[in-house]
């Protein structure tokens, strides 16, 4: 019983319950568009929770996250595009890579591991930086990753669309992976490393004076973040079936960041809530765009409403509630607080 009352268990259970509800509703309404939206939402939960693991715990904004999503997607693609399609999908592929093969599920997780290994290899020096310098270097890292994806034709097919990924990503699969990501992120947050990372976030000088190895704890958080981004990328790749490097750049970075900033980077509850709110808003606004364009109310086409609303929402949240909608307390903390209050 005390296990059930544990605030961390309650947080995971509540957030996973939300995902489960989404799956049930999707099966109940049985509308293909809804299932697609719900699947994308679950993939975004993996992505945003992954970003929260680094940004929420260290307080450093990272632009590189979506780049690691790309690494995961391309790795999974390399391992799963059927042999008979490889010649067309990847005409410049290195001969030694032609025999690479793995089951899609395994490939998705290997994509996460490759992203984590690359993050581990390139990011340690960057973890010594703070504030604006850290943000700018993370942006530079995104540019590097994007440029590599754009020009490494042998592996990515260059700027051209890469196709042929088996479409194995289903709503239940993404919901399970999203639930796993939530549990892992919460375990990290409450672990020794998570607390040390959060200490460096709150006061770097005091953290150093206490003997905390700031670059190391940030580095480990960054690796976890890249791992989840890579897994998210693999899931997405096997959902859409084809993509090009432009799928992993600024527009997508902006959406993922918007979800986290609106929900609250300090909590996993905020990250998940941000995905739900922004997805709901996006889909409503897209529908509005379609309705406005079909009704021909304006002389020209109405486009970009979703991005503009997201931008204004981010500005509003940052101005009025800088910590996001759920800044500090996880949902489990709130539930335990309520129960204690009722008990008096």
């Amino acid at each position: 019983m005390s296990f059930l009352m544990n605030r961390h268990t309650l947080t995971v259970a509540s957030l996973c319950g939300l995902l489960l509800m989404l799956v049930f509703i999707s099966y109940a309404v049985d509308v293909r568009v809804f299932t697609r939206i719900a699947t994308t939402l679950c993939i975004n939960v993996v992505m945003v929770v992954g970003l929260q693991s680094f940004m929420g715990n260290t307080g450093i904004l990272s632009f590189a996250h979506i780049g690691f999503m790309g690494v995961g997607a391309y790795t999974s693609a390399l391992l799963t595009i059927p042999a008979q399609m490889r010649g067309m999908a990847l005409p410049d592929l290195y001969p030694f890579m032609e025999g690479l093969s793995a089951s899609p599920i395994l490939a998705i997780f290997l994509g996460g591991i490759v992203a984590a290994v690359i993050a581990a290899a390139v990011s340690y020096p960057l973890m010594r930086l703070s504030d604006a310098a850290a943000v700018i270097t993370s942006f530079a890292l995104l540019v590097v990753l994007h440029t590599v994806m754009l020009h490494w034709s042998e592996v990515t097919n260059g700027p051209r669309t890469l196709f042929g990924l088996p479409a194995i990503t289903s709503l239940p699969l993404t919901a399970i992976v999203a639930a796993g990501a939530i549990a892992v992120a919460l375990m990290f947050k409450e672990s020794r490393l998570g607390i040390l990372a959060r200490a460096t976030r709150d006061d770097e000088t005091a953290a150093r004076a206490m003997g905390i190895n700031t670059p190391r704890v940030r580095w480990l958080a960054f690796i976890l973040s890249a791992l989840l981004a890579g897994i998210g990328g693999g899931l997405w790749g096997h959902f859409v079936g084809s993509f090009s490097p432009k799928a992993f750049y600024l527009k997508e970075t902006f959406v993922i960041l918007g979800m986290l900033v609106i929900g609250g980077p300090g909590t996993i509850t905020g990250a998940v809530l941000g995905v739900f709110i922004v997805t709901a808003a996006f889909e409503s606004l897209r529908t509005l765009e379609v309705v406005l364009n079909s009704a021909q109310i304006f002389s020209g086409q109405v486009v970009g409403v979703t991005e503009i609303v997201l931008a204004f929402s981010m500005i509003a949240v940052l101005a009025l509630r800088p910590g996001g909608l759920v800044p500090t307390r996880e949902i489990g903390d709130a539930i335990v607080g309520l129960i204690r209050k009722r008990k008096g």
Partner: protein
Amino acid sequence: MQADIPTTALLASNITVEFAGLRALDGVTIVINPGEILGLIGPNGSGKTTLINAITGQVPLATGQVTVAGDVMPLSAPRTVALSGVGRTFQIVRLFDQLTVSENVETAALAKGIKRKDARKIATEILQEFGMLSRAETIAANLNYGDKRRVEIARALAATPKFLLLDEPAAGMNESESQMLCKQLLELPKQRNLGILIIDHDMPLISRLCDRVHVIASGKTIAAGLIENVRKDPAVIEAYLGSSARQDA
């Protein structure tokens, strides 16, 4: 002089610190012995906090070296100094604001590699000692100033330091809080064989806590020794204690 210093002491010798050509500390040497409380006093801007920052590796030294229980500390390495057993508090409280009181205290133990479960146990014991256990789950940012000061000291103690450097620990506390803190600090050297360096402007507090004091003015040592002797030192009276003390003397 250094031949008499026990190998278990913290020795900061010939410390000089410069900021853009301005000499904030000029050849200061200070010794903190285990089990004693040493007072560090001086007028505002005399370099007291800079000395703590220099000892803990948070400002680069122009000259000098810091030795902790016989180990020479590398330059500008606050982490190494902390892991060698030197804890500190700050003039302006620096808690981890979004962490709970308990988590704040745990971090010091966790930084030393202690497991989470054990760190929590250590935090519970220290918070009980400081009368803060009932507020263990409070977010640190929501504490009042006096409690923040106490949590900062508790946090420093959770790392089981050999030496504790306290920068105005009673600042912002009312009389009763200050008295209670004084009582707790007096117990620490005996209980933990801890050497404490304390900066404070409250002379009655320094007198109650310390046997020895070290006085600096304009970045230089002007007196050091037993508090009774230092109080009578003309240079100290002139530089720090002022005319009222001159009358007392």
